[in-house]
Structure formats: structure tokens, C-alpha cells
């Protein structure tokens, strides 16, 4: 029971901290999960990767975390606590925003928050890369994926699946 309450509180907090989207809270989520819930870096990156394969918002991977820790009930609680607080806040701010109309401070707060959220996303990249790039093969796979996604129109899911298959093949042969 206390595990479920802990999960609900942790993910509600993460929900309200996720300024700039879910990737902004990746480092915070990772350290929280490893310190309080015993999910190590490798597991975290695996679960994150599963989220990349799913359609819809990629942060739906939080469901897998909930499922791993406390079964279907855990998945439901994590989903609710990760999506509800931020959505309710956004709902009311949206109504307030519409009432206020255009104000110079609105623009400057938006402009100010943008680079901060990009910095947080960069921290998310760093956290995921540190755990997933473990040698020459994985570094090459990450670089090739980066290039393919940025420079071509190949569906990212195909890039990721291809990297999984090709990577497994390479690592089997190199052993």
C-alpha cells in the first residue's frame, strides 16, 4: 500500500515538474526511480526504449514502470498521477490565459522558459546516453540513428527496430 502511495506522490510531482514536456523530467525520474524504487539505469533505459516504440506520447512508458513495480494497479496509478495533475493545471491556466489576452509578460515568460526546457531536454539526452552507450557498437548505433532521424524521412520506429536487430546481430558476431 505504501508503495502505491509513494508511486502516486512521486509521479504527481514529476507531472508538475515536466515543464517543456516529458523528456525534461527524465534525469529527475531516473534518479528518483533508482533511489526510491530500485529501478537501475539499464532497466530504465530499456523501459524508455519501449516507450519510443509505442504510438502516442512517448512518456506512456511510465505505465511499464508502474507495472514492473506494482502490477496493473501500479500501472493505473502511475498513469493517473503522471497525467492528471499537469492536465488539470493546464486546463485552468488555459481558461485564465484566454481571459487575460495578450500581455508583454506572457511573451517574455514563454521566451525565458524555452531555453530552460531545452537545457533540461539536453540533460535527458545525457542521462539516457550515459546509460545506453556502453561501447563502440552502441556509440555507432546512436550516431547513425541520430543522423538518419535528422537527415532522412525514415520512420523513427523503423530506425529504432533496425538498430535493435542490427545491434543484436553485431554483438553476437563480435563476441
Amino acid at each position: 500500500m505504501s508503495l502505491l502511495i509513494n508511486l502516486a506522490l512521486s509521479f504527481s510531482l514529476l507531472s508538475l515538474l515536466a515543464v517543456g514536456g516529458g523528456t525534461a523530467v527524465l534525469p529527475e525520474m531516473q534518479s528518483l526511480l533508482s533511489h526510491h524504487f530500485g529501478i537501475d539505469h539499464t532497466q530504465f533505459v530499456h523501459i524508455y526504449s519501449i516507450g519510443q516504440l509505442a504510438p502516442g506520447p512517448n512518456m506512456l512508458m511510465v505505465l511499464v514502470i508502474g507495472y514492473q513495480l506494482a502490477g496493473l494497479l501500479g500501472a493505473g496509478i502511475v498513469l493517473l498521477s503522471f497525467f492528471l495533475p499537469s492536465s488539470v493545471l493546464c486546463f485552468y491556466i488555459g481558461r485564465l490565459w484566454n481571459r487575460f489576452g495578450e500581455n508583454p509578460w506572457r511573451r517574455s515568460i514563454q521566451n525565458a522558459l524555452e531555453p530552460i526546457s531545452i537545457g533540461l531536454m539536453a540533460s535527458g539526452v545525457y542521462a539516457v546516453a550515459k546509460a545506453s552507450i556502453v561501447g563502440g557498437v552502441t556509440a555507432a548505433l546512436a550516431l547513425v540513428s541520430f543522423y538518419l532521424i535528422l537527415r532522412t524521412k525514415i520512420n523513427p520506429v523503423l530506425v529504432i527496430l533496425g538498430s535493435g536487430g542490427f545491434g543484436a546481430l553485431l554483438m553476437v558476431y563480435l563476441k
Partner: protein
Amino acid sequence: MNLESEPLESRAQALSFGDLFIQFLIIGAISFGGGIIAYERILLVEKRKWLSPDEFMAYLAISQTMPGLNSVNMAVLAGDHLRGALGAFVASIGLILPGSVFVLGIGILYAGASDHPLANLILIGIAAAASGLLAAITYRIGDANWRHLKSLLIIFATFLLMSIAKLSLPLVLLIMAPIAIYLYRPSKAA
């Protein structure tokens, strides 16, 4: 810009909760690999004309500034705009339902197979590609910010505090937000 220039009732009659749900459900099911906002724009502005381009941009700004996932926030705001509180609920549930089912299915498989050696090797490759994907998305979302010294400095400082100094996120926001808002304050921008 006044977002309530058109009476809500005239729009409300044009679409049912079922239609709203199905349209966002489709987006939730087909938007692989990020870029959901793009799908939402196609639906809301181009396909159904439920929002004007201006309204969409205003809602996008709120979606990005508020905590939470941008795509979900957009569903909440557009749903509220179109059919009030229940519309917001219906649209966001539609958006996250397909992915939730998918991710839970894979998650159950993963829980059962995480010790399998081949599954592990495949996941290592997938994880490496995912970090490449995340880097690419970050680079793209950063857009013009990479070319301006002021925003580059804020990005760099935020990264240092978060990843190198390993401060907690609330603390990082507490330090960086006032500095950034000061740097972008209206008088200077004007």
C-alpha cells in the same frame, strides 16, 4: 487575440463527443516516433478546421509553457475549447489510450523476458538508437535557440546545474527561471 470571438455553441453543434474521441484516438494510434503536435495541427487546423491557425499557436504556447506533455496539454485545451471540460477529458483519453494499451502489452512481455540473452541484446541496440532519437528531437526542438548566445548560455547553464552539479529539478528551476525571465523581460525585448 481573443480566443472566444466566435460563440462556442455554433462550434459545439458541429461536433459530437464521439467524433472528438475518435479523431484523437486515431492520432494516438498512428503518431509513432513523436511529432504528435504536427498530427494535431493537421487535424485541428487543416482537416476539421476546429481551430484557426492563430488559436492553435496560442494553445501551443500554453501547452509548451505548462508542465505536462505538450501533446496531451494541446488535447486538453482544444477539447475544452470545443466542448468544455468533458471535451478536454474525452480528447486526452482518446490520445493516450492506444499507446497505453500498446506499451502495457510490451511491458508485460518485457517483465517476462528481461533475462533472455537475445532480448537483452536487442534492447541494448534499441536503447542506443533511442538516445540518438532523443538527441535528434532535442536538436530539432531547440531550433533557433542554438544560434542565439543568450539562449545558448541558458541552455548550457541549465544542463550544467542538472547533469554535472546534479541539483534537483525544482532547485534548477528556482535558480534558472528568475535569471531567464530577467534576461527576457519585456522592456528589453521591446
